[in-house]
Structures are given as C-alpha cells and as structure tokens.
C-alpha cells in the first residue's frame, strides 16, 4: 500500500540539475568530433582527395599538422573528412533499424501471437551469426557501395531493437493506464503509438547510441577490407588498410585513423551511458 521508493516521492521541479558526468564527457568528445566534421572546409584548406606526389610521406610540420600519406594527401584533412563520411553514414545507418525494429518490437510485444513468434524466430536466426560476419557477407553479396552498407546494417541490426522494445512493451502493456485506454475503446494503433512507444522508446534510444559504435566499426572494417564506402571519399578504414604497407616506417598512417576510431567509439559509449542515466532519472 505505502509507496516506499524514495525517488517517486520527490515532486519534480523545474530546477536545473547537473547532468551526469558521463553525458558531459561523452557529449564533449562527440561534440568536438562532429563539429570538426561539419566545419571541415573551415578547419583545413586542403582537399582530402587531391594527390600531390611531390609531398609524399612527409612527417608532421607546420604545413601538414599530421603529415602526409603515400599519395601526398594531408592526413589531418583526410582524418576530418573521413569523420564526415564515416559518422554520417553511421548515423544514417542506425536510423532505419531503429525505426523498423522499435515499431515491430512494440507490435510484437503488444499483440503477441503469430507476429511475436515470427519476430522471435527471426531474431534467433540472425543472432546465431556474429554481427560483423553477417554485415560483411551481405555487402559482399550486394556489391560494395554505400547503399549496400545501409541495407546490410539494417537487415542485421533491426532485430536487437525489436527484442529490446518487445521486452519493455511486455511490461508496459500490463500497466493499468493501458488497460484504461483499452477500456475506453482506443484503437490498437493509437495505444501502441501514443501510449506504449513513448514509454518504451528510451531504452531503444540508448541502445542506438551503442549501435552507432558498432556501425562505425563495421563501416571501418568494411573499408579496411575494400568493401566499404567507395573511393575517393576518405574513410578511416581505407586509410588504415592502405597504411599497412608502411607500418614499419610510417606507422602514423594506420595508427592515427585507428586512434580516431577508438576515441569516437569511446565518446559515443559515454554519451550512451550518460543518456541512460539521464533517462533513468525520469
């Protein structure tokens, strides 16, 4: 009878409460990277694709902050433009699985029955294979190209969202406000879209944050294997791959983009954690 949980006895006031540290840290890192990516032409005057065979493999200097690669292209420039390419593809790639998976998961959880069974069996099949293996396989089959990447990632990732949302929906649908909505004769569509989804979507969003990291890694891996975003667009994976032959002499060609991947992944993970904490507070 008595509600003894502490958090629910506090009336929410419009007071500013410091966001979680992880959110600030992650947000800053990702923020800086995104800002650099957007402002690329302002940050660097070089063209990432222009080949200049006269200044190949130069070390860091005032003209080239991080040096040049084997085709004379400025590494810093390629890094920033690579961020543009990889991040934008990753963000776009996460949207379709998020949307499709969330909606299907909500319907499956709410309606149960054959839809639920179908989705769960599909999930079992997809989950049996490692994520990267499937994505690489699909891109290989579809032929390299940005649209193949989108299709492959969507086909493989939507399942995770569906499972998460199905789980939270199963809990949400037993709440009495859902029962009240049913009793009022609200249509199933209205109940799912307006009452279930807003209450379960936060978990999905948090997962999307960590999924972007997976997607970036997948894109970079594909680039490394030559199946990624087609040249001449700069891509961290491709940079790492082509820099391999110079590992002993100019290790920075491979290491620097690798480092960029790590930092970006870290930032996104922290951001996801911070979001999780923030949404958990509510």
């Amino acid at each position, binding site marked *: *009878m*008595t*509600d*003894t949980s*502490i*958090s629910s*006895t*506090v*009336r929410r006031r419009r007071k500013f409460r410091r966001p979680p540290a992880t959110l600030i840290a992650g947000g800053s890192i990702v923020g800086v990277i995104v800002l650099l990516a957007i402002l690329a032409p302002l940050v660097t005057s070089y063209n990432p694709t222009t080949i200049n065979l006269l200044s190949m493999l130069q070390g860091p200097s005032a003209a080239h902050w991080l040096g040049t690669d084997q085709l004379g292209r400025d590494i810093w420039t390629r890094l920033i433009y690579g961020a543009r390419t990889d991040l934008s593809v990753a963000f776009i790639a996460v949207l379709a699985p998020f949307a499709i998976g969330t909606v299907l998961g909500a319907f499956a959880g709410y309606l149960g029955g054959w839809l639920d069974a179908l989705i769960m069996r599909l999930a079992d099949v997809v989950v049996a294979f490692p994520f990267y293996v499937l994505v690489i396989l699909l891109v290989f089959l579809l032929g390299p190209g940005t649209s193949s990447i989108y299709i492959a990632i969507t086909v493989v990732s939507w399942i995770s969202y569906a499972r998460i949302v199905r789980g939270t929906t199963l809990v949400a649908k037993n709440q009495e406000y859902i029962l009240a909505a049913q009793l009022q004769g609200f249509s199933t569509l209205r109940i799912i879209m307006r009452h279930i989804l807003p209450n379960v979507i936060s978990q999905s969003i948090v997962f999307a944050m960590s999924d972007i990291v997976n997607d970036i890694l997948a894109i970079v891996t594909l680039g490394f294997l030559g199946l990624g975003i087609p040249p001449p667009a700069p891509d961290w994976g491709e940079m790492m791959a082509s820099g391999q032959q110079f590992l002993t002499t100019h290790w920075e060609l491979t290491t620097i983009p690798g480092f960029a991947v790590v930092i970006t992944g870290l930032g996104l993970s922290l951001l996801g954690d911070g979001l999780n904490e923030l949404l958990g*507070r509510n």
Partner: protein
Amino acid sequence: MTTLSSSTGPLLQVENLCIDVTLVGGKKTVPAVRNVSFQVEAGEAVGLVGESGSGKSLTLRTILGILPNGVRATSGRVLFEGVDLLKAPKRTVNRLRGTGITMIFQEPMTSLNPIAKVGEQIVDAARAKHSWSKSEAGEHALSLARHMGIPDPENTLSLYPHELSGGLRQRVMIAAALACQPKLVLCDEPTTALDVTIQAQIIRLLVQLKDELGMSMLYVTHDLAVVAQLCQRLEVMYAGSIVESGLVRDVFRQPDHPYTQGLARATPDVDAVVDQLTGIRGNAPTLGNWPHGCAFHPRCDYATDECRTGNFPLRETSTGRASACIHIDRLHESMAKEGSR
C-alpha cells in the same frame, strides 16, 4: 557487554536520530527523519504510526542497519541494552541479530528464500545462533510451527514459500524470526498485505507470543486500529518527526495533537453511526518539501502564525504523554464541544 535485560533502563533507546536521504541523481540530500527519540521497555509493544513519507520504516531499518543505498543515519544514538548500534562494530551488531533483535517484514514472498523449503529456513535461523544438530533444530522448528498455528507442520514445513498462502508464509517468517528467542522484534507492517481475517489471526498470534515469551515489539504501521489491538504505547510520526507519544488508550481517548486527531477521525469505523468520513485536508509533504515551522501547519485547523516558524520538539503534557503541538488546549476545547466519539 553483559546481557542482563530488563534490570536497568529501557531495552531500546533511540536518541535524536537523524536520517538523510540522497535523492536519485546523486545531487541533493534531504532529511527524512529529524531528531526522533523514543524507547521500548522490556516486554512492551510500542507502535510507530504514520502514513507514507513519515519516516517510520526508515527509523525501524536504522536499528538493524539495513538502510537502502543513499540513506544514512547522520546523527543520534540507537542504544540496545546500552550499546550504540550506530557506532558499534559490525561484529557486535551481527551477534545481536537473531538473539537480540529480529525483524518481520511486510511481504514474506520477498523476505523468504524462494528456492528453499520453509522448514529449512526456520532451521537455518535457529542453527545460526545455537550450536544444535540438524535434528535438534528440526524438532525445535516443528514445535515452533505448531506454536504458530501452522497446520500439519510435518508436511507444511517441507513446502516452498510459493506453495503457501500469504498468511502461512507470514507465520513461517514469524517462526524463523523467533527461532532464537529474541528480546526485541521489529515489525515492518507485517499484516498490511494480508486479508483482514488472516490479519486478525496474525495479530492474535503476536499478542499471544508477546505475553508468553515476554518479548518487546516495535510495530510500524499506518493502521491505528491495529496498534490499538497490539500495543501499549505509540509514537505518531509526521514528516520525519514524532508529533505525539503516549499510552494507546490515552491517546485514542483524547489525542494531544491535531494530526493524531485527524488520523483517528479519518480511520473509518465499522461500528459508527457517523455519516460523513472526515479526512485531513491537503496532502502530506514529500521528501525535501517539508513546510517550515510545524510540518503539519498547512493542514491544521488550529494553526496560528506562531506555527509557521521555529522548531516544535516533543514536550511532556502529562505523565507518560508528550506532544509537539503548542495549541493542545484549543484542540481539547474544540473536541469537548463536539462531544466525545
């Protein structure tokens, strides 16, 4: 540290206990219990009464040191047989659990181990403190079960908690709690989740055990009528403080605090001929939003400007009774005018 009980001083003495709660998000800390003092004598049952948010459960849990994360006792003393449990080393407190102090919870489903037979749980409780063999402890468990009115103990004790009804589970929990014959039993609303006929059985059992074993009880509840059946004295809590204290029969015949009066009036009386139910206007303040001065004043019919600021500690009104209210005379006047209940 001798263990002679009941010779000198009360069994349990809580002095100026303050408990703070750190709110979700980790940024703000608010008081949940302020300067609470009371005592329990040997063989006495004391009721700790209040509604949600009064701090009664936290006060109880502080005694055994089982506060949730983010909740801390910041000052005050909790003396059990003269030993301050808040400052004593963990070993000392652990030694007291079972033989000195035990606790009975509201929801037996979550406080009993779901994958152990109930008989085993009683046996484990007994053997934790006494060096009995399994068969000796088993015998003790059986006789305890019979004493608790558990039907067909040999078979019932070999069942799992989910196979028993709520009332039976509660009896098992009581048996496990009493397996070591503690001196003080802390009860956290043990009958709130039970049907009223089963509640009556459990209350009868507790009264009987208290008389037979001479144990003391500190009984937390929101139900005034249950306190009336079970306890000799009561402490009424509101917004983290005790607002009234005294013998049960005195307090209910004539409350010395407007909140106690309001609570008594709001409790629907099944024998009453009164038509209207009167509640207390307004809402109970939530943690961190306690009004200044007397926390009850926004809802009080007798409040004056004096009530809006300052502190209102308990003051003795007559032998054995205390109240935090400064307008007791007006309260009694208006009660006299209405006629007694």
